């Protein structure tokens, strides 16, 4: 993870298009400017960044399902629960399932675990929109492929 660049997912470990399921890994860095403020002398991952991590995995799931034809934009979340602290150096396992794919939007459900412990969960709604620029499409695909997704080379 590079928190200050909003790069939340290090690797995609499993992707199942038929089941609408993805698993990913995110290594919390030992140091980051984020931890200087959250919190001084007591660094823990901000809850919003845990939600964002589930969102990114959710985005990769949708990019894989729609073969990069649409870009998922996070527009809402429900039933967000942050159950435990996550500290620098810990390894988070993220899993996301597709709950519903509607016309131009989707609803997913994600979890984060560290070891066997459930850390966070959320239901997320995303709008599926055309890529605003080809450059963004190419960059999103490049990052997804770097993370391990098998996607078309261009969006």
């Amino acid at each position, binding site marked *: 993870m590079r928190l200050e660049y909003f790069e939340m997912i290090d690797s995609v470990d499993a992707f199942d298009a038929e089941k609408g399921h993805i698993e990913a890994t995110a290594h919390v860095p030992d140091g980051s400017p984020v931890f200087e403020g959250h919190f001084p002398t007591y660094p823990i991952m901000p809850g919003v960044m845990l939600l964002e991590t589930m969102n990114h995995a959710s985005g990769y799931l949708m990019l894989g399902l729609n073969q990069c034809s649409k870009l998922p934009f996070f527009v809402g979340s429900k039933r967000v629960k942050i159950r435990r602290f996550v500290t620098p150096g810990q390894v988070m396992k993220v899993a996301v399932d597709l709950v519903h794919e509607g016309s*131009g939007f989707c609803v997913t459900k994600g979890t984060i675990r560290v070891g066997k412990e459930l850390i966070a969960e959320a239901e997320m709604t995303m709008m599926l929109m055309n890529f605003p620029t080809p450059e963004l499409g190419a960059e999103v695909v490049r990052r997804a492929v770097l993370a391990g997704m098998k996607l078309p080379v261009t969006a």
Partner: protein
Amino acid sequence: MSSTFDVVAKVISETSEIPLEQITPESHAIDDLGIDSLDFLDIVFALDKKFGIKIPLERWTEEVNEGRASVDDYFVLKNLCARIDELVAAKNA
């Protein structure tokens, strides 16, 4: 058995916290009930699940934007219910 309108009104009431008695077949989802686009996504999600359909929101938006349909065709509730009935009938055909 509940009518399509009863189901739609209940979903809107629960999703958008609008009293059920304020919702009528003539209500306009945006102008009368003040439902915004994000609330409408939640409503469509719930209606998709309730009726086992996929409301073609993208096509409807395109039709309205291109002037081939009016907003009322989809957002006045009696019209929305008619569209849902068509989708359910097509699914069961």
